[in-house]
């Protein structure tokens, strides 16, 4: 699915987002930040899970390593955020590359188990690493920034830019030669090899990009909550959301995770305030079951089916008209 004016739309979104920080109260940026964090995670997951067909259960591991990269840098030299973000991308990109080398020989459920195990191993390492606070966690003290209404508004704008960048990259991959190769791997890996698609290289590209993007999503997290400890950084909800959002939106294109993240993310933020923050996971679960059962191709798949159906009806009507005439 190609949405024609992508860049104008992205630019407009960004400008409106920045302008909004001066008009709305702080709560909306806290909620918006979390939705955008989900959006980046979902887009990243979809590059490996949706485009390539390898289900990754270890998303929280990459996310948390992005967060811990920030903690390490903060503790060591406290550099500005425009250094922290690329650093997290590099660390988690390399992590993705390494994980790819070690696990991509596995397929299907075994790959999923391996990624889940990786996240647990990383969590154990962080729990036992004194420098980043171990099990107790680490504080991060933020300072006010000029121009922006508040620090959270500033983080929201940064996250918005990162989210637009991530979606643009996923969109590029979707339509490029690389994306076509990834789709071939998803459809039939052996056939892809026979046709001359360098499957290992493409899979490594996709794990690296996925890791880097998830690291970026996690890089700002310590600044956002100002306190990081392993249990919340490696939280199950991060990993589950990263899978649920693309599944609900539709995994075969770049649009799916965007729709899924905006929808599921907003619903979660709304229930957190209006119903109960504990019900979040339950809602994700119910929605996921519903979509898997009723719309396995997600919202994008439903839309495509609907478009095909209306086209058919139109043609049928035209056929009737010409028959009567």
């Amino acid at each position: 699915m190609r949405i024609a004016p992508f860049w104008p739309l992205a630019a407009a979104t960004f400008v409106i987002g920045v302008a909004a920080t001066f008009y709305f109260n702080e709560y909306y940026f806290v909620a918006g930040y979390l939705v955008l964090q989900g959006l980046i995670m979902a887009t990243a997951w979809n590059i490996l899970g949706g485009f390539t067909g390898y289900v990754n259960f270890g998303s929280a591991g990459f996310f948390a390593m992005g967060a811990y990269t920030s903690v390490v840098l903060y503790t060591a030299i406290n550099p500005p955020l425009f250094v922290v973000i690329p650093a997290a991308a590099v660390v988690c990109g390399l992590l993705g590359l390494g994980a790819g080398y070690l696990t991509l020989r596995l397929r299907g459920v075994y790959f999923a188990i391996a990624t889940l195990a990786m996240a647990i191993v990383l969590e154990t390492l962080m729990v036992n690493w004194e420098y980043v606070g171990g099990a107790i966690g680490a504080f991060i003290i933020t300072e006010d920034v000029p121009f922006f209404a508040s620090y959270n508004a500033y983080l929201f704008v940064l996250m918005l830019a990162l989210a637009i960048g991530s979606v643009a990259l996923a969109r590029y991959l979707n339509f490029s030669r690389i994306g076509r190769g990834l789709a071939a791997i998803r459809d039939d890996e052996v056939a892809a090899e026979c046709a001359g698609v360098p499957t290992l290289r493409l899979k490594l590209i996709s794990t690296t990009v996925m890791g880097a993007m998830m690291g970026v999503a996690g890089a700002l997290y310590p600044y956002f909550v100002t306190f990081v400890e392993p249990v919340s950084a490696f939280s199950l909800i991060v990993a589950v959301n990263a899978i649920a959002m693309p599944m609900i939106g539709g995994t075969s294109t770049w649009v799916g995770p965007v729709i899924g993240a905006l929808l599921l993310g907003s619903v979660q933020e709304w229930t957190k305030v209006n119903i109960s923050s504990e019900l979040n996971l339950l809602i994700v679960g119910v929605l996921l079951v519903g979509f898997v059962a009723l719309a396995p191709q997600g919202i994008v798949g439903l839309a495509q089916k609907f478009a095909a159906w209306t086209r058919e009806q139109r043609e049928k009507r035209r056929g009737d008209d010409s028959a009567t005439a």
Partner: protein
Amino acid sequence: MANRIVVDNVEAGYGTVQVLHGVSVTVEAGETVVLLGSNGNGKSTLINCIMGIVRPKAGAIYLEADGERFDLVGRTPAQIVDLGITLVPEGRRLFPALTVEENLMLGAFRKEARARIEQNLETCFEAFPPLRERKTQQAGSMSGGEQQMLAIGRALMSEPKVLLIDEPSVGLAPILVSRVIAKIRELKERRDLTVLMAEQNFNQAIKIADRGYIIVHGEIAFEGKSAADLQDNDMVKQYYLGV
């Protein structure tokens, strides 16, 4: 351009089951060589060894191109495609959820062929006109014959010098089989290909063969120096014609 494939004394199998017991086959430049044998005798295994999908336990496989010799054992399939050898796999193995055009584009990953994607697409559509009409259709929704054409078209997108074809007749109606076989001959002549084709359908395969081997239980049972040689042989009669 001389492109010669030499398979020398190859032994291969899956796990503890050995399939090929010292198989030697050569395909000279510009030849169409057929590999004949019924199911389960090792035709596909041999083709997969050449393609780097199955790794032989012993023996050597190499490509001689323009006076240079490339060892194929230990290379990945993608690297072997880069050398100019492409496979039309058994059962076609298309990407059913992708469109016809996307399937063809996936054949063009080879670096040397990337610059001429548009031309090669045009050549494919000329060779197989139904593919042009069905450009945006999902590959899995086409008929078996059209799918086989697409599989051959996808292989041609990499501009191969050597074309390996594994059982092009599988799952096709007899009339389509002879059409596909005729098409292979036509393409071979037009594009200066060297062809190695594994096939069970003796009568069809013999129509385009310059030479052939009969493979039985993983060993070369008979080498026919010409098509006539294959046709007149008692063993061929015993195995294929049932007389």
